């Protein structure tokens, strides 16, 4: 029997649209080996290596897991998002979705939901693994309360940066550049390596980077300290990068 093609248009409920978009974004992410490497294999490898053998290299076993969590937030909110979105643009996915009831707000909310989900799973998995490997952080509840919103601010700023690259450059360029920025930010941006390890001259400059602000905030949290200056730094980056992303993003390639 052939289908009845009589028009019967209409949009589904907005929450369903956002949830379904988040679900398919997650499915695409988990099907991509390179993304899984960034999201889980590298952080888990670093954490296990650091907790088992870090003493030989002077790694602090209290702050190192917090550094790895900062790295996980960086990889999911920036690198994965930039690469995925760039290829969505290249493959015409965004163009196709523009002509569906999924609004741009829905699409961004769906992406945010997928990113938050993957980041939450990463942080939870890394926390459990670190605890199993002997990590014993002891932050006062108030420090936790004022520090974790910084993770949301950092993820937002990283996501905006990712969308600037994804919305402006060729997908293959984004693939290379996002991985390069990931490494530079992780190794030289104060994300994994504490600011105290850098020379005095570069420390104030690095402290202005969102990567350093997140890394220091989480390392401070692990030792029970509140890194207040991360708020103005991350807040300013959020505002600037949101403005640039709104101006720079193109939906078609």
């Amino acid at each position: 029997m052939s289908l009845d093609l009589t028009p019967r248009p209409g949009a589904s409920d907005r929450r369903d649209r956002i949830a379904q978009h988040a679900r398919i974004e997650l499915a695409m992410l988990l099907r991509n080996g390179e993304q899984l490497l960034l999201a889980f294999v590298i952080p888990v490898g670093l954490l296990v290596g650091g907790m088992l053998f870090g003493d030989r290299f002077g790694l602090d076993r209290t702050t190192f897991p917090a550094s790895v969590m900062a790295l996980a937030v960086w990889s999911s909110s920036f690198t994965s998002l930039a690469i995925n979105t760039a290829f969505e643009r290249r493959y015409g996915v965004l163009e196709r979705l523009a002509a569906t009831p999924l609004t741009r707000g829905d699409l961004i909310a769906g992406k945010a939901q997928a990113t938050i989900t993957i980041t939450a799973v990463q942080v939870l998995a890394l926390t459990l693994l670190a605890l199993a490997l002997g990590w014993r952080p002891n932050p006062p509840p108030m420090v936790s309360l004022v520090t974790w919103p910084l993770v949301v601010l950092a993820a937002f700023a990283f996501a905006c940066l990712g969308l600037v690259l994804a919305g402006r450059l060729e997908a293959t360029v984004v693939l290379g550049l996002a991985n390069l920025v990931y490494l530079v930010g992780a190794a030289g941006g104060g994300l994994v390596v504490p600011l105290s390890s850098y020379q005095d001259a570069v420390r104030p400059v690095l402290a202005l980077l969102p990567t350093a602000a997140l890394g220091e905030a989480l390392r401070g949290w692990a030792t029970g300290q509140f890194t207040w200056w991360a708020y103005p730094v991350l807040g300013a980056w959020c505002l600037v990068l949101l403005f640039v992303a709104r101006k720079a993003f193109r939906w078609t390639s």
Partner: protein
Amino acid sequence: MRLGRRRRPDFCETDPVPDASLKLDQVSLALGGRRILNELTFDAAPGLITALLGPNGCGKTTTIRCCTGLLVPDSGSISILGFAPGSPDAAARVGLMPQSTGAWSGVRPGELLRYLASLYSHPHDPDALAAELGITGFAKTPYRRLSGGQQQLVNLAGAIIGRPEFVVLDEPTAGLDPHVRRSTWDLIRRLRDAGAGVLLTTHAMDEAEQLADHVWLMDAGRIVLGGTVAELTREASLEEVFLAHTKRGDA
């Protein structure tokens, strides 16, 4: 019908449709300093198949991007089913088959159709639609491993899964073999007969002749000629009319 180039379109005996599904009025757009659309004016009626014919690079895909709100014209106006392009009201009522791939490389066709169906309130059953279009056999194959023709069928299914009132098909049969091409034509006719308006872009003269209730001939971002196939082919074949009124594509 008068031959020869002119700035304003020749509407033959066909007046603009009063309650058009799609209406473009004096739409102009420049991209990267180059004028792509040049006071483009045409319309498409509800329940009819309208073909937009033109050489490569004449602005057909840019026109479609304006109609879906992806691009905003520098001047002029566009109304789609009475709504602004890209507005939630328009997006819920319009189905688009883009010329480019339009899918994640790793997505499976069945999965993509179920996802797209979830965005609409009364969609077609994805499995039934897949069966209707002959997609079932490769519904679990990742999109990147499909042939060009199979990808086209998935894109077509994606355009109509929300039971749209108006369907925009950007070169719907490019890359299809004659069997699938004919069945796609049949599906487009059934959409029209069921009451949906259809706008299709094509280079294929036979496709326009077979399907279109109305043809607009486009060149260098503007309409140069319009009418029914019968009106346009009174003195010459559609291909000869096309060649007489358009420049070589991407020239």
